[in-house]
């Protein structure tokens, strides 16, 4: 493999990782602050993509669509938090898994009811079309670079939010002691709704950004949900830093595995066979990595070790 291709594939892995980070950051934030496992996070991703596609089609502007996706996902998140999620904070993980599993069914069929069964159209904005040259003679798509940029911006933003602002202070306090911040006079209910909506908005943002690359359709959130869980478990649940690291690890391992495993096997097997076996192994790779990491660090890479 040439250097240019290698760089391109690493960037692809990085871009996939950044995407996963946008999902995982919300998940891990919600778990860290409220102790909640939210399987319906993928549904909020879908809401973001649908909102962006519909608004972009109506207005002709991807950017308005992007704004709409943030608003729609945050609103959907807030509504779900107030009506359902709020009742789950005191429950065990089992109830949370089940209730949010039920929410997936509701969201998926509800979306299909409203928007129909056919996939929607969403394209990247003209401003971000085209490619930029890479060192070594290759080139890389501008839009994907922009996604990487957004991911880095969100990571910095979250870091600043949590370490520098009053909201962040409250979030950190909430992580350590719910009763204490209630005693401090912070309206904990509102805080939780805000955090949940923030996580939802990040998922919606990811959905909208990816919607321009992929197919906007019902069920699009489920594969990415499972990956996002893999990410936060590898990184250590509740740790934003862990989510970032885990996301990039998963993105790069998955991409490079898909590319390299079949090629490595083709040294030993006929190409058709190498493709099949390599593909099979590549699809299992990140789960193998996850199991290995948890076997040695049961609370993830950046999780609090008990």
């Amino acid at each position, binding site marked *: 493999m040439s250097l240019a291709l290698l760089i391109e594939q690493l960037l692809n892995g990085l871009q996939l990782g950044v995407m996963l980070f946008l999902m995982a950051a919300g998940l891990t934030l919600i778990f860290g602050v409220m102790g909640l496992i939210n399987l319906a996070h993928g549904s909020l991703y879908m809401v973001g993509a649908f909102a962006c596609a519909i608004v972009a089609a109506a207005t002709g502007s991807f950017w308005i669509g992007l704004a709409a996706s943030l608003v729609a996902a945050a609103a959907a998140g807030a509504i779900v938090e107030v009506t*359902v999620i709020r009742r789950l904070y005191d429950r065990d993980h089992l109830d949370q898994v*089940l209730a949010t599993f039920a929410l997936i*069914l*509701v969201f998926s069929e509800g979306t299909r009811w409203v928007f129909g069964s056919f996939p929607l159209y969403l394209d990247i904005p003209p401003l971000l079309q085209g490619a930029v040259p890479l060192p070594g003679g290759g080139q890389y798509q501008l839009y994907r670079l922009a996604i990487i940029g957004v991911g880095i911006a969100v990571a910095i933003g979250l870091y600043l939010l949590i370490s520098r602002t009053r909201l962040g202070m409250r979030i950190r306090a909430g992580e350590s002691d719910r009763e204490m911040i209630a005693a401090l006079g912070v309206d904990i209910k509102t805080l939780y709704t805000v955090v949940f909506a923030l996580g939802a908005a990040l998922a919606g943002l990811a959905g909208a950004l990816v919607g321009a690359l992929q197919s906007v359709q019902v069920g699009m959130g489920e594969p990415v949900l499972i990956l996002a869980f893999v990410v936060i478990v590898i990184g250590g649940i509740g740790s934003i830093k862990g989510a970032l690291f885990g996301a990039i690890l998963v993105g790069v391992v998955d991409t490079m595995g898909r590319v390299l495993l079949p090629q490595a096997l083709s040294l030993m097997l006929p190409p058709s066979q190498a493709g*099949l076996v390599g*593909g*099979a192994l590549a699809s299992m790779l990140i789960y193998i990595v*996850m*199991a290995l990491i*948890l076997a040695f660090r049961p609370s993830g890479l950046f999780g609090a070790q008990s």
Partner: protein
Amino acid sequence: MKATGAREIIANATIALLLLAVPLAASAMGEPFYVTLATRITILALAAAGLNIALGLGGLVSFGHAAFFGLGGYAAGIMAAHAFNAEPFFLGLDSTTSMPVIWLVAIVTCGLVALPIGAISLRTSGVYFIMITLAFAQMIYYFANSWPAYGGQDGLPIFIRNTFPGVNTAQPLPFFLLCYAALLLALLMFWSLRNSRFGAALQAARQNSVRVSAVGIAPFNVRLVAFVISAMVTGLAGALFADLNRFVSPSMLSWHMSGELIVLIVLGGIGRLFGPVAGAMLFVLLEHFLGGVTERWQLFLGLILLGVVLFARGGLLGMIAGKARHG
């Protein structure tokens, strides 16, 4: 306390009789489909009863039990396929269509696979345990999906239902009765486990694992044994399910299946003897009748589930028989 205990016993007896009586009546009335539906309930209840050992007694939220359900199914499917093609099965041994042998293979396979999965997963706890069991199941799912030998995503048909000595398994009713007997045996085992010394240690480990180690019992060992037994029962259910559908495919291994098994238990009542049975009845009937009424049935199924989790804690049996008590 006595009254709620008695109510639960009556509820259990009613459920057990109903599950037996409906297919008998349906068969007599020439409605074989309702026998098939009852068989489906019975097998799903068996699978969930297996999970209930880990989840209900041990508090181990395994989000990967579909792995064992599917492995059991593949054991039946693969052996039937080899027998159908008259090929040797393993180490030159002849394959067979005899259910007892297939069940044994399914149970042993699941036990052997559950042992390392459990040993690694049980190093973690809480959400990590949920997710690592999911990860193992996904590994097996993707493997089955992309491995070409046994049909991959298309799955593996079982052209002729496997056999049981002295029973005509091709007929719906005898096959149902076999499954029903297996379910009763599994429930008997669950009951016996729950009340045994092992069950005491397992349940205590769920309530307070620090306490359990402080009296000198290693929670890890107890949980690992529970996880393996649990997987074996679910694997047996998988083998029966494959024979019921005359088909096995990776969708038996998918994370939705793992979710459904948990749903069955919670619908019925966690840790209760007949929780999985009540849950499976409710779930299959909901799926069947909602599916008949509207194509948006998944929406309503979701809403009903949500309602149960939020407002009917303790599941169906919890509503009928009140809070569960331990000796």
